[in-house]
Structure formats: C-alpha cells, structure tokens
C-alpha cells in the first residue's frame, strides 16, 4: 500500500504516469489483511493511508476542486505531494529497518536463557491470609478496648487516615510493623478507622501486606516502595 501511495504522489508531481490510470482501489486490497491482523495500529494505519490515496486520486482527477497552486490559510499545514512522497520514502526506509529488527527478534526468540526467578521481598510478597490479618487486628483491638472506656465523637475519617498512612509508609521507605500503624490509636473507633483505611489502601494497591513466615510479624509497605 505504501508503494502504491507513493506512486500516486509521484504521479501528482508530474513525473510519473497518468494519475487517471492509477488504481486507487488496489490500495484498499491491503485493508482486508490489516483487519485480519486484528491489530488496531495496523488497521488505523491502513485506513489512514487508504483515505490519503483517495484524496490524492481525487486531486489528480479534479484539479480544480482543491487549489494546489494557491493554498488558502486553512491549507497551510497540508502536506504537499512532494513532501508526502519524501515522507513516505523515509517511512519505507524505516519499515525496512523494522524488518532488520524483526530478524533479530526472531533469532533471539529461538534461544532461551534461565527464566528470572521471582524477586523475593515486597515486589512479589506471598499473599497474607485474611484470617492472619484478623488475628493480628484482634490483638490490637483488645488492647484498645481495655484502654478506652469512653465513646467520643471521631473527627478522623477513613479518607484522612488513608492519607496519614500513606505518608507514614512513604516516609518509612520500607516495611512498617503492622502494630506500629496503630500506635497512636488508644480508642476503639480510632483502631477501626485505621484498620478500614489500611484495608482500603491494600484494596487500591497502594499498600502491600507482608509476612515473611507463617505466624511471623505482619508488616505493611507502600506499593511505590514495593515496586
């Protein structure tokens, strides 16, 4: 299709064959192949070039329809046939360069190295069972209930606590002990808010729970650190 389009552009410059004889319809034959490839980029490229081919053909057949000699201001950015031919020639060269890369890709795909082992640590932590999380939370909950006997109006929201936890995790630049996140929470409601905020951070992927061994201490790390 590129070749056919370039042929059209060359014809428009006056140095090629009769534009009227150029078969624009042939430029569309590759559309089927492009769509069969089911690659959106290929499809859009094929459509764009086919549309451009039609435009060029129309210009060749109906020279009065578009004033090529004195383009208006709205046509200032229009690509001239000569510029188009140059660009397509350069594009063609890059397409061939892409083929060179393709040969390297195919050759390399025939050879195998050791697969990378899963990275240990926070980047790929083992999933922490929810029961473990509840067990850890229960201990904190018990301590909070023992300390707090009054029910006060809470001004701290889950959203605000999420921001605070994010700041704590980022500042730590590493895993933070699960219990440490509740250090300032003396009352039950505070513990609940912190726990909900933490669950939400984990759900959103902003924080990751870590437990290096069964029954081991639970830690939390910011997702940015985990990456």
């Amino acid at each position: 299709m590129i070749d056919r389009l370039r042929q059209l552009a060359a014809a428009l410059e006056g140095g090629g064959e009769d534009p009227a004889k150029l078969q624009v319809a042939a430029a569309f034959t590759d559309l089927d192949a492009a769509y069969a490839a089911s690659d959106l980029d290929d499809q859009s490229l094929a459509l764009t070039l086919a549309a451009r081919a039609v435009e060029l053909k129309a210009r060749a057949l109906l020279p009065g329809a578009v004033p090529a000699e004195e383009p208006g201001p709205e046509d200032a950015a229009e690509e001239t046939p000569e510029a188009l031919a140059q660009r397509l020639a350069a594009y063609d060269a890059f397409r061939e360069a892409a083929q060179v890369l393709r040969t390297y890709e195919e050759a390399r795909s025939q050879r195998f190295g050791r697969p990378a082992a899963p990275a240990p640590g926070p980047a790929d932590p083992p999933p922490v069972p929810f029961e473990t999380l509840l067990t850890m939370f229960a201990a904190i909950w018990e301590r909070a209930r023992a300390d707090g006997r009054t029910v006060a109006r809470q001004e701290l929201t889950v959203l605000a606590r999420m921001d605070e936890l994010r700041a704590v995790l980022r500042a730590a630049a590493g895993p933070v002990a699960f219990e440490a996140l509740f250090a300032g929470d003396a009352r039950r409601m505070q513990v609940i808010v912190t726990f909900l905020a933490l669950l939400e951070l984990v759900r959103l992927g902003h924080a990751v729970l870590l437990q290096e061994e069964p029954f081991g201490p639970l830690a939390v790390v910011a997702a940015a650190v985990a990456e």
Partner: protein
Amino acid sequence: MSPLTARVEALLFAAAEPVTPVALAQAAGVSEAEVGLALSELTSHLEQEEHGFALAAVAGGYQLLTREAHADAVTALLQRRRPPLTRAAMETLAVIVFRQPVTRAEVDDLRGVRSEGALLTLVERGLVAEVGRDPGPGRPMRYGTTRRFLEYFGLRDLTDLEAAKAALAQRVADSEEPA
C-alpha cells in the same frame, strides 16, 4: 576446564540476565583480564563439546543461551513463546532506535499516524524509556532504547545495528534529494 572457568560458568548459569565482566570479576574475586580468559576458554569448551547452550555476548555482558537448533524442543517443554511485537510497535521502535532520542511527535510525523499506543507498549515492555526532554515548545519527552532492548533482540550493543543504520541513513538521504 580451569577452576576459574568453571566458576564463571556457574555464575553465568545462576544469573537470569547478562552479566558484565566487571560483575563476574567481582563475584569470582579475580581481575577482569582473568575473567576474559575464562570466558574465552568457556566459549571454546562449549563449542568443542557441542553443548546444548552457548555463551552469548548480550547487552554489554554475557549470558548462557540454548542453541537455536533446540528451540522447538525447549518451546515444547516450557510451553511458552514470547509474543512478537506488532508491526506498528516494531515500526515505532525502528524510528526510536535509529533516531534516538526522539519525541512521540517526531515518530508520528514520520509514520503519518499516531503512535501513542505502540509507544506505550514499548515502554511497558521496557524496550524504550524516557531519556529527557526536548528543548522545543512544550518540552516534550524524548525516548530512547534501554538495556532491555539489547537483551530482547540479543544485541551486544547498538553498534550491532551500524550496518542497518548506515543503509537507513543512505535511503533517507536519497529520498530527500530533489527528483
């Protein structure tokens, strides 16, 4: 095979990525020159003994890779084959490789279509990365190839593509000459 060569072989076997001579020397506790000799001996050994894998110079380092002759068998065992890049992604990559550092707009101009999706794919696969900003209006991001690009294509470095680059430059220059 000398003990040092065997040690270097063990290091390369354990590594999942190409290992530089510097890293090999540090791990083995010897000089780079000694590592160089060990690599030469290892290459000869693997060739003479017709091993199923060979030593490949990739991305400024060395890596043990299976030979192409066994590709089908290895593929059957692993049940995996990496999907090739799409044509659009490969064309976009070619522009970046041979014109880097380059902005997305420059890639778009050359291809005549938007390359945003293809570029995103390349970035996600780690083949290209942002390498700075263009000083022009809007200071758009510039893109260049990565070490992962060299690994993906099995290239020692970008000079492996010098011949292709020269041919490309000649063709582009020809296209810019007036008819």
